């Protein structure tokens, strides 16, 4: 198996450290060789930087990739946004020698060179391809029996031209990983719809962003689930903190717990909700917390 370095990005270490902890615990348990990536920066955020200036976007992204190249490791991200930036930049630089030369002339200013020797992986496609749902089941010690509204997020699977993860209207690979934990992935209206945060919309147009989120939350509530599961801390932040903002703005009373897949998997691998930082979310659903504590203690 390839050696990996964990690319944290911004939101995981600086807002949802539970996802960082959960990811480290899970990968350790699965015997995956992973190390930190000291000095890594913002990926940079695709919604803004890629929208501003391509040269800058490539320069910052390639610096992060070079940090991992130097360690002889592939990058592993737990964020769709970071995946979008790093994987896209890596691909463009590898296939376009002119762009690579141009980016390297910037990197020369800080004594670095992009070689193109590392791959960028997302934890979901990594787990699916390198371990697979069937083998993953062998590691599970706690059958979760949760009803899950799965949110793939956009940049994990799109643009499909560059992702090679199959079709984008009704993919199943992530659902299979969810169900490997003993949970049930419940279908719901507009499951593949965006959470409304990306592209700089959450920061630039907060109201419109929350309107999109509210639609998504209404569909999820109708499906009657225990929690939302995502694979992106920015979607996670939108669903979790955004849910509080939606309630304030629209007078609703949503209280749907939100887990990153690393946290869901962590529960199934026998870690406690506390260790996985699940209680640190903005949404505090006592009923759900009681349920996962019972599951985790083997009382269910």
């Amino acid at each position, binding site marked *: 198996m390839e050696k990996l370095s964990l690319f944290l990005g911004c939101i995981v*270490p600086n807002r949802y450290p539970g996802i960082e*902890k959960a990811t480290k615990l899970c990968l350790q348990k699965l015997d995956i060789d992973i190390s930190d990536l000291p000095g890594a*920066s913002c990926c940079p955020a695709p919604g803004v930087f890629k929208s501003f*200036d391509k040269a*800058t976007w490539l320069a910052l992204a390639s610096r992060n990739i070079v940090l991992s190249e130097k360690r002889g490791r592939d990058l592993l991200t737990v964020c769709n946004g970071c995946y979008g930036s790093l994987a896209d930049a890596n691909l463009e630089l590898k296939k376009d020698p002119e762009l690579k030369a141009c980016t390297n002339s910037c990197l020369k200013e800080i004594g670095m060179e992009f070689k193109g020797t590392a791959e960028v992986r997302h934890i979901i496609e990594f787990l699916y391809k390198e371990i697979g749902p069937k083998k993953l089941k062998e590691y599970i010690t706690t059958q979760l029996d949760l009803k899950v509204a799965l949110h793939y997020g956009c940049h994990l699977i799109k*643009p499909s031209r560059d992702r090679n993860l199959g079709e984008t209207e009704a993919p199943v690979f992530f659902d299979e990983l969810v169900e490997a934990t003993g949970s049930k992935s419940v279908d719901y209206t507009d499951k593949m719809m965006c959470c409304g945060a990306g592209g700089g919309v959450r920061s*630039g147009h907060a109201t419109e*962003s929350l309107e999109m989120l509210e639609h998504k939350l209404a569909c999820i509530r109708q499906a009657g689930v225990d929690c939302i599961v995502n694979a992106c801390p920015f979607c996670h932040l939108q669903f979790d903190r955004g849910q509080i903002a939606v309630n304030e703005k629209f007078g609703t009373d949503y209280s749907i717990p939100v887990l990153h897949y690393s946290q869901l998997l962590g529960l199934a691998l026998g870690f406690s909700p506390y260790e996985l930082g699940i209680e640190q979310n903005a949404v505090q659903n006592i009923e759900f917390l009681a349920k996962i504590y019972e599951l985790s203690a083997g009382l269910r």
Partner: protein
Amino acid sequence: MSEELPKVLKAAGLDLLSCMQCGTCTGSCPSGRHTGLNTRRILRDARKNRVEILSDDALWLCTTCYTCQERCPRNIPITDALLELRRLAVKEGFMLPEHRKISEMVMECGHAVPLDEETKQKREELGLDPIPETVQKYPEALQEIRNLLKACKFDELTAEK
């Protein structure tokens, strides 16, 4: 805009001429359901070299979800084109104040979302180092980011015009 929009887009590998204005993009748009974003119209206006679209706020209502691009029956990379239009808009000095702030944040601390006291405490509760292993912990790494942004003239691009 000294050059014409369709030419600039074409040079970036984005030919909008094959668009037949079917509206699949607009019909598929999760933002367009709730906002004034009309992707089909942006494509038409870009093709007609209506440069006023660069100052249109609608450009910044796209979440870059790529649904339009995936569904386009003519396989036009629509989201890529929209991102190209945004870059042209920024070159012309159009940038939302919130987005300028995020740019400044990255120049200042290497992150779009920097560490705060509340999260430091949460990290400690989890047994993690309160300062993560990122650019925030290594001043020399932060200097690299600043030098790199300067080499790209990013500070000039995002300065208020």
